[in-house]
């Protein structure tokens, strides 16, 4: 029984499915610790990394995950605008990959919803590796895995997600996943960076990081996009850092066992101080290692017998 045809959004996953993905990842994590790390499971399957946005980390994580399971991997990097100007549309590319018989397409795109569009055109499984400001479900799953690894259970944990929520696909996916798993989520940041509608996401909104820092079990910092400074969203990186950055002083007020997380790449000295990023609390490197296991888990669960898949994507 395979669980999903496509993974486009965390909306598709209930607590049971998330648990299954994380449990499977846990078994696979064992394999990554032994000398021979390759498994024959997906021999003969072909996975395409279709990346319209540069992202070395996510791409190599998916590439390695697929290779560890013996799938063949094609990397297709394109710039959406330039491929349009060359007359190679998104749909043409989708059909080309389809004709080559790929079994899964891992897509990263700057346009929100591009994976949904792709899922309507191809028979292959589509995995969203980040679309616009919409979602980044595999990041959320590896984050859930990393938190669960430390706290055993996600229920009733208090997680603060700090920073640019409006423009963050990581935040959207994480809020959904954490709320589904019973965690308490607080979104923290300047009012210009938190959509007013987020109160309907099951999260609490707070503009003062100091008001929650002592209560949280996890402080999840989002990357500050340098270009936002020019959009009148906050006065300067300096002010942002003073009010919403996690420096040593703030980190020292956290509960002893509380964790610091970041999806990377970090702007040290802006949203996170360098010493905090390297402190005992920081599980940033665990996140990277766990990303591999979670992506292997998804490829294994999704590339089973396709006919059994529940085609969630096409019904939207």
């Amino acid at each position, binding site marked *: 029984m395979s669980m999903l045809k496509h993974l486009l959004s965390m909306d598709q996953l209930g607590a049971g499915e998330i648990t*299954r993905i994380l449990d*499977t990842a846990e078994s696979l994590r064992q394999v990554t610790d032994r000398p021979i790390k390759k498994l024959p499971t997906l021999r003969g399957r072909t996975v395409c990394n279709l990346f319209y946005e540069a992202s070395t980390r996510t791409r190599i994580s998916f590439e390695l995950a697929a290779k560890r399971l013996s799938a063949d991997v094609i990397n297709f990097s394109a710039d959406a605008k330039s491929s349009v100007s060359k007359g190679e549309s998104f749909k043409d590319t989708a059909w080309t990959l389809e004709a080559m018989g790929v079994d899964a397409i891992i897509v990263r795109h700057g346009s929100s919803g591009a994976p949904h569009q792709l899922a309507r055109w191809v028979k292959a499984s589509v995995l969203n590796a980040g679309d616009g400001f919409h979602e980044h479900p595999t990041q959320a799953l590896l984050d859930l895995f990393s938190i669960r690894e430390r706290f055993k259970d996600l229920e009733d944990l208090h997680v603060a997600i700090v920073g640019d929520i409006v423009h963050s696909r990581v935040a959207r996916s994480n809020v959904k996943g954490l709320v589904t798993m019973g965690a308490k989520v607080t979104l923290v940041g300047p009012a210009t960076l938190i959509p007013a509608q987020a109160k309907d996401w099951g999260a609490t909104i707070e503009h003062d990081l100091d008001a929650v820092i002592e209560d949280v079990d996890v402080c999840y910092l989002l990357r500050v996009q340098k270009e936002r400074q020019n959009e009148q969203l906050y006065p300067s990186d300096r002010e942002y850092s003073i009010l919403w950055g996690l420096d040593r002083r703030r980190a020292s007020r956290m509960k002893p066992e509380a964790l610091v997380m970041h999806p990377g790449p970090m702007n040290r000295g802006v949203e996170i101080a360098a010493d905090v990023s390297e402190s005992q609390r920081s599980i940033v490197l665990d996140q990277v290692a766990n990303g591999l296991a979670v992506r292997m888990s998804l490829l294994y669960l999704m590339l089973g017998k396709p006919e059994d898949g529940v085609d969630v994507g096409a019904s939207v």
Partner: protein
Amino acid sequence: MPAQAAGGAEFQLKTRVMGPDEIRRALIRISHEIVEGNKGSEDLVIVGIRTRGAPLADRVANTIASFEGVDLPSGALDVSLYRDDVALRGPRNLEATTVPGDLDGKIVVLVDDVLYTGRTIRAAFDAVLDMGRPKAIRLAVLVDRGHRELPIRADHVGKNLPTASEEVVKVHVEELDGEDAVLIGEFK
């Protein structure tokens, strides 16, 4: 509680071919054969194939340990990731693979409940070989029901059970099913 086959058909019991006593005796005999064939318990690692091979391996290891007066490690192997039917049957829920220590130079005895096509054992060979380089791999099964699809033969067999291919052999173990039994039936 009627077991459900993949298609929703129900398991209908025809015969109960082994009970707790027969199973106990068979495992004791197998344990002795293993030690005899190995000329002692040195370098032995007993590894059960999940799901029902694992508790059987534990019993064999305990039996050997008690009559040899040694501490014999046992492990459990989930071969799902090595199966050749992932694309046909879809992914299974994974269980932990626990193998005691280093397998290099060891005599690995694989234990499973039923030997049928041989494909599970083939997957187990690959799984073991990816974890180390044992000196030898042996195979012990509670029931050999025939119908091999690969040239694989068990070293130790609890009971040879001639069956028709439409028949289903189910092994129940105390640890997981609340009883020890070997049943023959059909899915209807």
